[in-house]
Every structure is written in C-alpha cells, then in structure tokens.
C-alpha cells in the first residue's frame, strides 16, 4: 500500500494465479465434517464452495418408516450439542398434532431442560471460538461446566449426549431431589466460573482484534439468507421463536432478547454470552414458580404406564406393548411447528396420512439454511478468520447433513 507498489506490481497482479485449497473435510480446525474448497490469493480468500452430505443419514426417509416416538432418537442426532431442545420440539409437534394439552408442571420442567441445553450449546460454541483464536484455557473451564449440565441430564433421563429425553405427553419421571439439588448448585456455582471466562475473553485485546469486523453480515442479507437464532440476533433483528410464538409456557417468563449491531463474529459471541445469562434467569424463574401437579398428560396411547404396573397388571402390560409397537394411528393433517433451537429456528413439518408413521417429515435445520451465506461472509478475508467465522456460526455437522 505504499511506494513499494509500482506499475509492474499491478501488471503482475493481473496475471496472478489462484491456489485451490481444500479446507476439510477432516481438518482439525473445522469442528465437524465440513469441506470448503477455497480459491486463495495468498492468504486471502477469493471464493469458497461448500461440500455437504458427508454424514447424511437420510433421517427424513427413515422417519417415514418409524412410529412417532421412535423419531425422537433421530432428532437427537441433528444438533447434538443441544439434543434435548430437539427432543422437546419433536414431542411438542406430536402433541400439537394429536391435540394434547400438557400439564403446567411438565411445561416448566421442559423449559428448565431446554434452557440448560441452550447453555450447554452456547458454552461449546463460544469456548470453541476462543480455541480457534488461540485461547484454550476458557474452553477447558467451560467444558467442565457442560459436563455438569450433562450430569443433570443423566439424573433426569439416564443419557448424556444423545439424550432422548422426555416422552410424547410429558416427561418420563418427576425431577428427583438430586436433580433439584444439582440444578440449584449449578445456578450458584456456574456464574462464578462463567465470570472468569468473561474476564478471559470479552475484553481481551487479542480476541477483540480477531473477532471484531470479521465475518460480518448485515441484517438485510441475514434475513434474505434465512438466518435465525443468535446469528440473526447478532445482526440486529430481535426474532426469537420463544417470544414470537411462545410454546411450553415461555410466555410466563421474563427474559430479554440480546441483540448485536454489526453481525460480526464478536457480536455473535456476545449475543450467545448474554443469552446464557438470560437462560439462567429463566431457569431460576421456573424453579421458583414450579407448579404442582403431574408431569405427564393423560395420553395412554403414547405415554408408557408405570413400570411396576406393567409387571403386575395385565391391562398395563397390554398398554405398554401397544405403545412400544407404536401401532397407534395419528390423525390426518399437516403441521409446521418450530422451536428456538441452540442455533436457530428448528422446525418440524409433518404430513400425516392417518397412519402410525408420518407420510412425510421435514426438518427445518437452521444451520443448513444459514451456512449458505458462509461464502459471502468469508470472501476477501483471511483464512484464519474464516475458521473463526465458521465456529462462530455454530454450524453443527449432524444438523447440516441430517
């Protein structure tokens, strides 16, 4: 940019040849199986093309052959960083389809689980942004706390990563005292460590330099590209499914929607950071106002009878087998139901022809839709910024490829 450049330099630029660089599919810096075929000019990205489908498992085809409750494990494997949200979203879709009202207590319990999952999702994403900028410390701290969230899942349903949590019609059992103890402990202890994480990154000069103004997208472009979730909010649009179309009693809770201004990597990071605080707020409110009552609705066609009855009573055993076989027909209809997933609006579009399995099930996977904008976001930037941008978008391979 100074006297070093003469006319000859410009001529040389014109006849320049670009390098093609394969970033991925199994590159340690891309967290998941993503392939980007980059056209590089030195370290500047000129163009990028994404290859998808490395872990495509044809979930939509499989779902057409499965009873409704057997689709829950498939949803686990979409966004596996916040599997409980997917499970709950699917349960709520089926409940809406069969027209069941869920008791308040179950709804509050679901809210607690979903917000814990959101915290876990955002912790992974944000700490990985740190890792990609060279700050490994925060990551080790935060993963320890994701572990604690998984311990809570384990106490609720027995599983950790692919949780398969809850059932159509409610939850499998009431929260035990141990669960309440662990959640309360989490609410007290986590903010202390989280504040240390904040101190490490939020006002860190190096982190600032790496993230501010990189991978930016305007609100207009973000909407055109179908952005949802924290990525859209970072661009300044306060669209949140929990507020726009409240489900599972979200209208009872008071929380803010954090938004960003520029839609760059730093804004996306900060939106997630602030959402973690909001999630903690929601969990606290749900715990304080937990209604009394049952944790399941009266849907014997879908909700398993208590195990001790199955072993001692004939009717309960018959009912148990009927549920497990999944031979109950679902009313005809078509339904689109959306929940606010960890990285955006997760939608379930079901066409039911009145059978035991959906005639057609389509997952609206948020990151499949917004990953299209990746080329535009990294064009003209450095390779190392592209890596940080990718992790700040929170693209999850399982959800991308379904």
């Amino acid at each position: 940019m100074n006297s070093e450049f003469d006319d000859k330099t410009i001529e040389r630029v014109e006849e320049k040849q670009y390098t093609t660089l394969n970033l991925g599919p199994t590159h340690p810096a891309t967290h998941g199986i993503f392939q980007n075929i980059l056209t590089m000019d030195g370290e500047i990205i000129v163009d990028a093309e994404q290859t998808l489908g490395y872990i495509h498992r044809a979930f939509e085809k499989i779902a057409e052959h499965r009873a409704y409750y057997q689709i829950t494990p498939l949803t686990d494997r979409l966004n596996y960083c916040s599997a409980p949200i997917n499970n709950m979203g699917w349960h709520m879709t089926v409940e809406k389809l069969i027209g069941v009202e869920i008791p308040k207590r179950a709804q509050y319990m679901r809210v607690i689980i979903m917000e814990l999952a959101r915290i876990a999702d955002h912790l992974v994403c944000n700490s990985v942004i740190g890792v990609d900028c060279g700050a490994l410390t925060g990551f080790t701290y935060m993963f320890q706390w994701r572990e604690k969230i998984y311990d809570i899942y384990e106490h609720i349903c027995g599983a950790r990563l692919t949780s398969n949590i809850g059932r159509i019609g409610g939850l499998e059992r009431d929260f035990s005292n141990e669960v309440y103890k662990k959640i309360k402990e989490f609410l007290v202890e986590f903010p202390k460590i989280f504040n240390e994480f904040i101190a490490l990154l939020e006002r860190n000069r190096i982190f600032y330099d790496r993230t501010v103004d990189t991978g930016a997208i305007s609100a207009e472009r973000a909407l055109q590209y179908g952005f949802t979730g924290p990525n859209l909010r970072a661009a300044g649009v306060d669209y949140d499914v929990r507020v726009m179309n409240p489900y599972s009693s979200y209208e009872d809770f008071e929380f803010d929607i954090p938004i960003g201004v520029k839609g760059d990597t730093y804004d996306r990071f900060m939106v997630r950071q602030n959402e973690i605080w909001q999630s903690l707020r929601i969990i606290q409110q749900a715990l304080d106002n937990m209604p009394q009552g049952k944790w399941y609705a009266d849907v014997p066609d879908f909700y398993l009878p208590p195990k001790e009855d199955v072993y001692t009573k004939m009717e309960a055993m018959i009912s148990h087998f009927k549920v497990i076989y999944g031979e109950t027909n679902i009313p005809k209809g078509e339904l689109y139901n959306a929940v606010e997933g960890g990285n955006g609006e997760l939608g379930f579009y079901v066409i039911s022809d009145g059978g035991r399995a959906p005639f057609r099930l389509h997952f609206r996977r948020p990151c499949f839709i917004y990953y299209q904008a990746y080329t535009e976001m990294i064009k003209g930037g450095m390779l190392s910024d592209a890596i940080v941008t990718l992790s700040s978008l929170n693209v999850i391979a399982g959800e991308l490829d379904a």
Partner: protein
Amino acid sequence: MTKEINNTYILEKLHTQFGNEIISSEEPYGMLTITVKPNAAYTILSWFKNDKEIQATFLTDVCGAHFPDLPGQEFCVIYHIHSLVNNIRIRVKAFLSGNSPSIPSITNLFPAANWQERETYDFYGILFEGHPNLTRIMNVDEMDYFPLRKEYPLEDGTRTDKEDKYFGR
C-alpha cells in the same frame, strides 16, 4: 396499523389479485395453506414478499413431497413463508405432475432457497427452472435415482441377511 392482518384478510386480498391461480385453501392447525398452480408460485411468492401490508419477506422453509396415489399431482413443493412484521406464517403448495416435475426457482427472490431447492431436487428430482446450480447436495453426484420417492424402499430389497426366516417369522 389500521386493519388487522389475519388469515381471512390475506386470503381475500390474494383472491382479488390471483383468483384464477389459486386451486384451494385451508387452515390446518391455524396456518393458512394455499395450493396454487405451479407456474404462478413464483409470482404469488413475490407478491407476498413485496406486498406493503403482508410483508412475508422471510422464507422459512422449502421442501418437497411425493404422493404416488394422486395421478397428475405426484409431486408437491411446499414453501413456508413468514411475515416477521405481522407474525403470520403462510404455507404455499404447488402440485406437479409426475413425468417431468418442474417449477420456477425462487432463488432470486429468496437467496435462502438455493440449497433447499437443491436438496428438494436431490431427494425428489423436482427441477427448479432458473436455479443457478441445480446439482445434488446430500448424495453423490453419480446417484441415478431420487431416494425420497415413495417407490424406493427404506432398505435394499436384495439383502439376504435380513430375511424373515432368520428371525423365526
């Protein structure tokens, strides 16, 4: 806002504009669902997007479906659009005939449709006219069939290790 924008109002307004292009309309689970002629889908979606009152500027989802039992309407493309201003979701459906299903692409209206149309093509073989890069997205390029069509069973019928006799059936 002077007038309440609801499903009935949108439908009335749409009927005055595109009376001939609309085949049917319903409201399953409260979502306005309009079935339109395939050639009019682009125009109607662009009208929804540009209408000053409705402002359905956000494309939520595009997907396909296969109905082998509906002669002449074997394939369906389903668009979900969302008016963020009025918080109304609208579903637009277009049925296509079986032999060479094709419909105009809406990529230049909504850039978000790009990969979703590619996915629909990959799964069902529905051609989107005017799409910038209509290639397979999830499956390998060499694949010579469209796997989500109903005639393809979930598992390979030639497999011998899953015969019923091995399971005592």
